[in-house]
């Protein structure tokens, strides 16, 4: 456990090196939220509610999706692929550590960095500057847990995608495809409530909504009870379990075909 904490700490420190990078990401995020404000303002120009969502609810939903985006972006897939191409994967594999947890702890450092430096300030500004006041229910209590689970689901998917680079040379295509599918089908771009009913029902059976839709719903739906929230978090936890096991299984298969060029 101690070694995993040290890994997380070192990636946090590495991120701190790029202070310009984080301040610019923060500014960029705020600007992006402002643009979303205009876009959704014009979508709601003539109507009060769409699909049961008020402007405030929809705007908070998509704007916070942006903050969650920086939070759940683990880069684990790119990192694994980069290590394979550079040969550094050998050094990873000879460590007496579990490869999945090793990859996870490296991303956790970035997570703390992104949450403290980007996601939280963005959310704060969202409420202060845009006066996005929303009614919250008990869901708020579940939000931290929902976010942690969302991060784990996102990591587990990225990890599996990263492992495909044991087979292919470059993962640009597969990683991009994953990212688009995740953002579209999880409600990160448009709230899931806007989708046709059939699509909505279908999407609830996919892991992607566990990343954005669940935490955002928990926050923006004041009339959710404790039971509803627990059920939502339950599906998240189930996906974490399934995807982690899948990743471990895939790793044992993939590590057999690993070829490293030079050294």
């Amino acid at each position, binding site marked *: 456990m101690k070694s995993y904490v040290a890994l997380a700490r070192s990636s946090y420190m590495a991120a701190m090196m*790029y202070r*310009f990078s984080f301040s610019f990401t923060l500014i960029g995020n705020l600007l992006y939220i402002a643009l979303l404000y205009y876009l959704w303002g014009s979508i709601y120009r003539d109507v009060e509610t769409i699909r049961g969502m008020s402007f405030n609810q929809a705007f908070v939903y998509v704007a916070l999706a942006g903050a969650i985006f920086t939070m759940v972006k683990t880069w684990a897939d790119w990192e694994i692929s980069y290590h394979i191409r550079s040969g550094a994967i050998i050094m990873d594999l000879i460590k007496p550590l579990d490869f999945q947890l090793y990859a996870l702890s490296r991303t956790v450092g970035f997570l703390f960095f992104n949450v403290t430096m980007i996601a939280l300030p963005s959310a704060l500004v969202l409420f202060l500057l845009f006066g996005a006041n929303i009614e919250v229910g008990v869901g708020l209590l579940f939000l931290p847990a929902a976010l942690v689970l969302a991060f784990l689901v996102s990591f587990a998917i990225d990890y599996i995608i990263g492992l495909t680079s044991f087979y292919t*040379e470059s993962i640009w*295509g*597969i990683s*991009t495809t994953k990212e688009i599918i995740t953002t579209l089908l999880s409600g990160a*771009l448009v709230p899931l409530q806007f989708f046709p009913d059939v699509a909505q029902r279908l999407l609830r059976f996919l892991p992607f909504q566990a990343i954005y839709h669940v935490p955002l719903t928990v926050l923006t739906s004041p009339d959710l009870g404790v039971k509803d929230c627990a059920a939502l978090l339950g599906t998240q936890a189930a996906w974490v379990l399934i995807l982690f096991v899948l990743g471990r299984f895939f790793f044992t298969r993939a590590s057999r075909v690993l070829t490293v060029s030079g050294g």
Partner: protein
Amino acid sequence: MRSLLRYARLYLLITSQYVKSRMQYRADFLISSVGMAFSSVATVLVFWVLFRSIPDLVGWSFNEILFMYAFYLLSVVPLQLFFDHIWQLRFHVVEGTFIKYYLRPINIMFYYMSDMIDIKGWVKLALGVSMLIYASQRLGLSWNLWRVFLLGIALFSSSLVAISILTIAACATFWIIGSFPVMDLAIKIRDFSPYPMTIFDGFFRFLFTYLIPIGFVAFYPSQLFLRPGEVPVLTYFSPVVGIGSFALAYFVWNRGVNQYTGTGS
């Protein structure tokens, strides 16, 4: 003229080497093409989902937005195909491999950009053309040779704007360590270019018209074809904006290139 021919020949030579090396990874090319197609289809799906709930977006219908998006796709094709190496600039600069591009008696920007051609950009071209045709048919727009010629000029101008915005953002790496967020923001902003600029007001409309002219990537020029009866004056400035922003990007690039000192390795 002679030098233009020489550069064309050089481009073919350098690029064909790159294409040959890429042909080793056929599977990757295929998957990447699928990924590229997915990203465009996803955007259209977002429009479709939105327009299920609203009749129009600040007065523009679904098909008109689709037309603008098709125009946008076509105007980023040259950037995707011929300037994609810009994404690698920060790695070359930080790792010192950028120094290679100083060592040939040819234009550095030309040499750098010709070192890579992103063949999967054909997907954007194909999707852009088909969406443009589909939307035109749905909207009952009439095309003739003159209008196709106009489209060529409009796309040339707007592709220069798209190239310039990303080039300037990428050049941040000459002065700053960890410049990825600058490019990331440029892309995030550019993603708003298929939308009517009239969704913004005041500061942002000014910003996107005159300072970071993403309005000229799709919205202003496409009105020449969408609503020929009510073309705003701004539209006619597209070529000026295009050439002007490219000149600025070239200036920034040269400033960066001239003060770069390598990494010492």
